[in-house]
Structure formats: structure tokens, C-alpha cells
């Protein structure tokens, strides 16, 4: 397993896209968060959850994280590298485990940087837009329990999105197909969850689709009115990630490469 991990780490480290995609994840997440913090103003959105606001970029940065994780697996299929990999590492579940570990590691680091930068941008920009103690809104601080939970949770959210993408890519073996499925899941259902006319379906979509449920981890206000609790929501996303990884692992084991 240690060798498998070492091999996967080497592949990930030396692939030309990795550094670029990780940098893009950090820049997009932090940049979009800062932009959101700069354009949302009080009055107007005084009731906004300032922690969630400063973490808006996660919704955009997740696309590059998903791309990275998909490529970790589908890249091997498109170049034919997978046959060499499987010849060197015949224990396929261990291979998937090693890939998952390597992806988790890099996304944890990049995600932490991105989330920290987002919160910092929020802390610096939000008071200038009217989110001040005058309106009963304290500046963002990690000493505040829910904010810390949202920050840690957002990093975990990105990791789980990466694992979900890795699982989908393992099952589908094609970059375009896997990316389409993952981004469709992440971006179409949140729109449907808002515009759906039947409140029962809005509620279902908010509770059970990976993006909407997972994003509950960022909420720090009015927790009682959320369709799903923060950790329960992240749990739903974790279940999605586990299910796709399991499906991908089974297919990887059963099929010829």
C-alpha cells in the first residue's frame, strides 16, 4: 500500500495539470469569495449569513477540484497508462484507495488555503459593506464556533466532492462523461431546488442532492430553519461520495482495463 501511495503521489505530483488545477481552485475559490463579499451589501442583504457569504467561492472552486479528481483516474484511461498501472499494482481496490488518499491529501491542503483566504477576504471586506456591529453582525472569526465548523466543513466538502468525482471517473472511465455527470449533479440540482414549484420537492432536493445538502455545512444562522442540519448535510454528501467510490471500485474490479 505504501508503494501504491508513493506511485500515485509521484503521478499526481508530476502530471502537468495538477499544479495548475490546484492553483486554479485556490484562486477561483478565494477570488469568487472576495468578489461576493465585495458586492453583497447591507442594507439590502443584512440578513445574509456572513460566514456563508465569505465562503461563496467554494461553489465555484469545486468545479476545478472535481476536474482534478476526475482526471486522476480518467487521464490514465485516455493515455493507456492504466494498463501499466494495473500491471504494477494488481490489487485494484488498493489502487483506488491510493488514488483517493493522494487526492484527499492535495485537496485538503489546497482547500485549507482557499478557505482561509476566503474567510480572510470576508473579514476584511464585509465590515466595509455595512456588515458591522452596528447592525448586530460581528466580524468573522474562527473563534466563533459555527464559523470554525463552516470553515473546516468547507474543506471537507471539497475533499468529498473530489472523492465523488474520483468514484464517478472510475465508474465511467471517460473524462467528458464523468465531468458531465459530476458537474450536472453539482450545478443543475441547486437551481431546481430553488425554482421547483412544489415545496415538498424543494425540500427533498435540498436534503438529498450532494451540492445542496453538503453546502448546509456553511450555514451559521437560522440553523433551525435549514432543510437539513450542517453535519447531516455533509453526511449526505459523504454517503454520495462513498456510494460512487464503491460503485467505481466494484466496476474497476470486475471490468478489464
Amino acid at each position, binding site marked *: 500500500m505504501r508503494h501504491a501511495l508513493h506511485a500515485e503521489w509521484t503521478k499526481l505530483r508530476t502530471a502537468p495539470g495538477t499544479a495548475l488545477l490546484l492553483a486554479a481552485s485556490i484562486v477561483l475559490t478565494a477570488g469568487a469569495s472576495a468578489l461576493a463579499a465585495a458586492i453583497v451589501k447591507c442594507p439590502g442583504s443584512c440578513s445574509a449569513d456572513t460566514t456563508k457569504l465569505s465562503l461563496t467561492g467554494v461553489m465555484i472552486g469545486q468545479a476545478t477540484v472535481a476536474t482534478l479528481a476526475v482526471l486522476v483516474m480518467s487521464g490514465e484511461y485516455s493515455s493507456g497508462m492504466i494498463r501499466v498501472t494495473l500491471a504494477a499494482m494488481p490489487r485494484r481496490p488498493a489502487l483506488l484507495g491510493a488514488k483517493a488518499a493522494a487526492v484527499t491529501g492535495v485537496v485538503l491542503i489546497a482547500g485549507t488555503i482557499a478557505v482561509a483566504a476566503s474567510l480572510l477576504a470576508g473579514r476584511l471586506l464585509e465590515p466595509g459593506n455595512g456588515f458591522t456591529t452596528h447592525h448586530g453582525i460581528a466580524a468573522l472569526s474562527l473563534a466563533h464556533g459555527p464559523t470554525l465548523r463552516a470553515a473546516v466543513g468547507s474543506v471537507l466538502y471539497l475533499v468529498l466532492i473530489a472523492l465523488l468525482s474520483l468514484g464517478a471517473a472510475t465508474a465511467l472511465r471517460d473524462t*467528458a462523461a464523468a465531468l458531465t455527470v459530476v458537474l450536472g449533479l453539482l*450545478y443543475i440540482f441547486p437551481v431546481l431546488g430553488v425554482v421547483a414549484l412544489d415545496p415538498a420537492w424543494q425540500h427533498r432536493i435540498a436534503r438529498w442532492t450532494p451540492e445542496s445538502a453538503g453546502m448546509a455545512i456553511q450555514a451559521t444562522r437560522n440553523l433551525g430553519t435549514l432543510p437539513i442540519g450542517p453535519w447531516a448535510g455533509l453526511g449526505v454528501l459523504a454517503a454520495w461520495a462513498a456510494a460512487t467510490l464503491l460503485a467505481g471500485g466494484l466496476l474497476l474490479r470486475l471490468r478489464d482495463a
Partner: protein
Amino acid sequence: MAATITPYRSGQRAGHDGFVPLLRAEWTKFRTMRGWVIAMLAAAAATALAPIALAGIAKSNDPETCTHGLCQVEASTVATGPDGEAVTDSFYFVHQPLAGNGSLTAAISSLRGTGPSLRKRHQFPQAPRTEPWAKAGILVKAGTRPGSPYAAIMVTPGHGVRMQDDFTHDIAGPAGPVSAASPRWLRLTRTGDTLTGYSSADGTHWTTVGTADLAGLPATVQAGLFVASPDYTVESQSFGGGDQGSSSPTQATAVFGSVTRRGDWPASAWTGSHIGPLELPAKAGGHCVASSCGDTPQQPGRFTRSGGAFTVAGSGDIAPFVPIVDPLQVALYGTLFGAIAIIAVGSVFITGEYRRGMIRTTLAASPRRGRVLAAKAIVIGTITLAAGLAGAAVAFVFAERKLTALGWTPPVWHDWSLTSQVGVRVVAGTAALLAVTALLALAAGTILRRSAGAITAVIGLVILPLVLAVILPTGPAEWLLRYTPAAAFSLQTSTLRYSQVTTGCVPYHGCYPLAPWTGFAVMCAWAVLGLGVAAVLLRRRDA
């Protein structure tokens, strides 16, 4: 003597170097890739089926709540107009019966509003005292039943003189507000079924503003002076989703002078009455509805007469009723599933060539690279257009049928057929926006040469703005729907909007700031820009 070496010439005849063989080559490439054909069929199927599924879960309008954009209070004030459409018909009318042909002339020297009532004013600090679409003028109506046919010539504080009839028709006349120093003379003449509106600045030189043909107008009509002032409505969305909407009735007062009648008018006095029901505070199930809490009821109008001058106060509006929710458009969000598959196919149509090295063969066979890109664009655009047309037509017909069965019925919601103007625009528009999305994907694929980057980038451009538009505040949300390719989704709007009706509608409700084809033009501009950059890069770079 040196021998001459004859260079080798192949016995094969040279192939055609035309554009048609190039198109055929690209079509063959598409047709023979099983995955692409399956993905395109899946896109058509998703475009057709997802909207039908979404329509199926759109519960019919629940009168107990305001969540569907039509509160009980509004429902009680909606009348049915001459063409069977939902209308607002609520105004103060100082009228007399007019038998046969005749005319009425008046000079309006003042039209002022009082704005939202004092109790509500703190809630609407931005509210103008006078609504831009307040109306005062001369009106001829088949009867006093709300929704009955009418024609009117009027002045408005913000939109000049207007000639309007049967709720949906609006003709602009001379611009400018009225004042005591510059009164506006208006005249409305009935000749058979034709009503003609005139306007004058001095009472001697008249210009025709417009005519209205009210077929089947009874011999005796109600004619007189009217004043209306629509509700002041603010609608906004704040960060994190959710909207705040609030409205308050307003009132306006107008001064009419030199009232002159021609024709068979009675000698009796003028009757003043409010046409239509008076709006009550919004209540549902005995509880105040959050979106319109604390409303003051609409004040009934009144009039006073001194000599030839009338002072008339009124409230309400005479206009088509525009519901906020558009159930068909909501169902058509299902076409996003098709769009995302089309983005994948459009990107891979060129990135697949880079991955397999096929691009070198393609460019060797057709060294003029711009033409290769053009052929690819025509082939993928046409295929997507055909798949989109089939999918959208099926989606439209079945989603509309399902919505009707669920209670989204006329007069408030239209029952559009496939051949109606809206049906054609929605179906052709959906297919066209999918085709242009495919072109955007092709351009991104050519520029980035990697499917992962191209797909992510195009989804970020076309679909992500729709996600952000429902969670950002009004300003940034409308900006996104104005300048990103997502503006084209306005083609899927099925509610008719009128320039003479101000609706507080925000992206959260699926409202787009641009008109349908204007939004589509924005997407086309992105595609043209993308393909232009792609053509330049394809020519400059080594394959």
C-alpha cells in the same frame, strides 16, 4: 547526357478540395463515434423528458399561500378580459351612459399621487409620490363589469399621453407630464365600433393618438372620466436565496376642466363609482401573508364637481395581469440536463481529435484550418439544432398538457399550443440556444484542446450563472443574466410581459432582465467571439 528523372505521379485522381466533402468528413466522424451519437440522443431525450418530469411535480397553485406568485388577495382582484386573459380592472370612474355615437373632451391640468399610505411610507423610502403609470383621462367602456371591453385616452406622469384599449393594447402619444401651466386636452370619439383618441396642447389644434376597434360594442356604453394609480411594488432578492416583496396601494388625484360632451348624453348627474373589487389587506387562512404583511386596504376613490371642473381621485390599474410565476419556464429548466450533455459532445468533437492525434490527419487533408473549424461548427450546430428541436417540441407539448391537468389554467396561466407565437419561440429558442451552446463548447475545445478544461469552462459560463442568479442579491444576479451566455435562457419565458405594466420580478422568480431574443443575441456574441479566437489559435498553433 544526363537522364531526366520523371517524378512519380499517383494514378489516383485528385480528390475534391471543396467545402462539401469537408462537411461530409465531419459528419462521418460524428456519425461513426458511438459514444457521441449516444450522448446526443441522451441530450435529446433529457431535453424532452426532464421538463415533463418537472412539470409533473409542479403542484397547482395553492390559494392558501403566496409562494406561487399569486396570492389569494390578488386572485380575488383578477378579472377576465375580452380575449379570455387575466386582467386587473380597478379604477375610479365618473361616468354617464352614452347612446350611439358621440364624444367627450376634457383638459387635464393636474395629476398628482399621494404615494403609499402614511402607515406604509417608512417601509418604502424610495417610493415616488406619484406612480409613473398612474392614469387619468377619458374612458369608454361596454359596461361597469370588470374586464368588459374599453378604450381610453389618458395622461400619465411618467409616460406621456397614451391611447389604450382592451387591456393589452397601448399606443404612445405626445410625451411629457401635465401641469396647471401646460394642461393636456384629450378627446375620445365613438363612431360605431371605432374609438379614436385625440390629444391637444391648446384645445384647438388636435392630433390623433390612435384608434381602437371594439367589435360588438353595445349601442349604449358607459363613458366618462377616470383615474387609476397602480400599486407600488418592490421586489428584491438578498444573498443566500429568498426574496422580499412588498406592495402597497396608491392613490392619484386629477383635475379635469372644460368637460364638453357631444352626442346623446343624459341630462342626469354624473355617477362616480369604483370599478372592480377593492383590494383588501393580503390574508391567507386568516393569517397575514408574509410578502404583503401590513398592507393598508385600497382606498375607494371620490370626485367633486364645481362648475365645469372635476376633481377625481382613484386607485388601481387597468392592465393585463402578469403572474410572477411561470410554471412552463420552471419545467423547461429540465433542458439544462440536455445542455450539459451537449456541452460534452461539442467539446469532445474537437478535443477527441487532439487526444487521438486525428487532428493531424484532419489538418493534412484540409490545410485551410479555418474551414475545418467552420465545417465542424456547421455539423455540430445542425445536429444539435435538430436534436434540440425534437426534444424541446416533445417537452413543450407534454409539459404544457401536464401543467394544465395540474391546475395551471387560464385565465391567469396561458395554455399555449405548439404553433402559438410563444410555443414557436420557446421550442425554436430552446433548440437554438442548445445549438449555440454546442458552438461555444466547440470553441472552448479548440482553444483549450482538452475536454476537461473545455467542459468545465463552458458549464461555468452557461450554467453556473443560473445557479448564482438565485443566490446573489438582485444587482449582481441581474448583471450575470445580462452579460453571460445564460442570458439566452430568457427564450424559455412563457409569460407575456408588457411595457405598460411594472412587475416586481427578480431572477429568483426566473425573470430575466433582457427580452428573449436580446438574451439570445448575448449568447451568440459569446459564441462568435469564442469561435473567432478559436480560429485564430487553430491557425497559429502547431497541432
